[in-house]
């Protein structure tokens, strides 16, 4: 196993996530794309952890923290989406333009 294969896979997933964040209109799917990017980051972290044979396991630790933060982010994100939906009957991020100057 080479480190490249893991990093390339992570990069590919990250690029897809980026594409998704830009193109998706639905707020939930935007969040999902962000999750994809975070998963890609985790792949990088864990594979470098294995590659470096880190005694402190920094990669795995950071991956765990990322997962925890992602969970928090999604919890809040979904709550906001539901809130918006209840008040506006839409989950389309482009429709939320009241704060525009």
């Amino acid at each position, binding site marked *: 196993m080479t480190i490249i294969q893991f990093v390339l896979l992570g990069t590919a997933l990250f690029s897809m996530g980026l594409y998704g964040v830009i193109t998706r209109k639905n707020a939930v799917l935007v969040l999902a794309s962000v999750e994809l990017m975070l998963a890609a980051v985790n792949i990088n972290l864990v594979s470098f952890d294995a590659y470096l044979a880190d005694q402190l396991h920094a990669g795995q630790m950071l991956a765990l923290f990322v997962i925890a933060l992602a969970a928090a982010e999604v919890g809040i994100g979904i709550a906001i989406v*539901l*809130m918006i*939906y*209840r*008040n*506006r*009957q839409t989950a389309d991020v482009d429709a939320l333009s009241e704060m525009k100057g």
Partner: protein
Amino acid sequence: MTSREMMHRSESAVSIELQTPDMTLNIGPQHPSTHGVLRLVAKVDGERIREVEPVIGYMHRGYEKLAEVRTYAQITALVNRIDWVSGFASEVPFILGVEKLMGVEAPERAQWIRLILSELARISSHLVFISSYPLELGATTPLMHSLREREYILELIEEVTGGRFHPNFNRVGGVKSAYGGGSTTKKQSMDLPAGFFKRTSEAMDRMDKICDDIDTLVTGNELIKMRTVGVGIIPPDKALEFGLSGPNLRASGVAYDLRKSDSYLTYDQVEFDVVSRPGGDCYDRYLVRLHEVRESVKIIRQAIDMIPSGPLQAKVPRVLKAPKGHVYSRAENPKGEFGYYIVSEGGKMPYRLKIRSTSFSNLTILPWILKGQLIPDLVAIMGSLDFVLGDVDR
């Protein structure tokens, strides 16, 4: 921004209550908790019911029209199919009305037999409720226990009348006898089967026992209380306004029982209490029915002691023709006040027969009581009203 959006925003500024789009949920016509073919068109927000529109009529058989082309004797065979869970009890008020109209009085023994069978029908009907109501709340075991005991009651009814559900046992001027409608004192009429009273009092002992069993299994069950206490409260004024009667009304604190207040048959000669509870919630409606079983057992025990011997049939003409007139006859059925308004124009058939069926009136409260409830409470409340669709649709 369009005006619609503006409106929406102003609304949301007033109330930030979470809401998701209302979903129209069709409960029924075929649904386990509708006891047959009742349909509820419910607008629900999540589990919360915004409003509900009951749709009935899937079993409408047009009894009121049919009765206009049938003789009084034929209608007797028809009416026990209205509330089939207590078939005998739906016959009684009709036959009493016809007897009143024709000026016939049934012999004392026939009255007592009617009383015993009415009370047996009441126990049977309440046992159906006691079995099915916990089932609706998810408890399966009370069903088997109380339905098994109900079999003893149905056997007794069958032994006397020949039918488990549709006895068709009442005749104008008495009850069925060996020689059909034209029985006289001269001919020995068919009496109750030998040993009937002994078996009945044995069955009554069983009923006492099953009431105790149900008490331990259901009445004291914490989860049953959690599901029913304080759920679906019907205040007395609403109950009266919607014409609720029977146990549903008595559970709301109105001790209205026709057996006491407008006594018929020989109910004035037996001792019993009118069961009523103050709460008006589902648990009270359940408790009233359970206690009424005990009261009925009491009544039947007394009746067995007090029943006189004698003929079962009074003398009646071969051709039953009622005089011109209006009569409203009602009785306390297991489910509540059951009445027949008979308009006679002097023929052998009624000119108009209005059937005041209990479940129909009891169900009119559904849209009011179900508004704002949760779907699980819908099941609990509907079950606690104890309706039979044949009784609703007629």
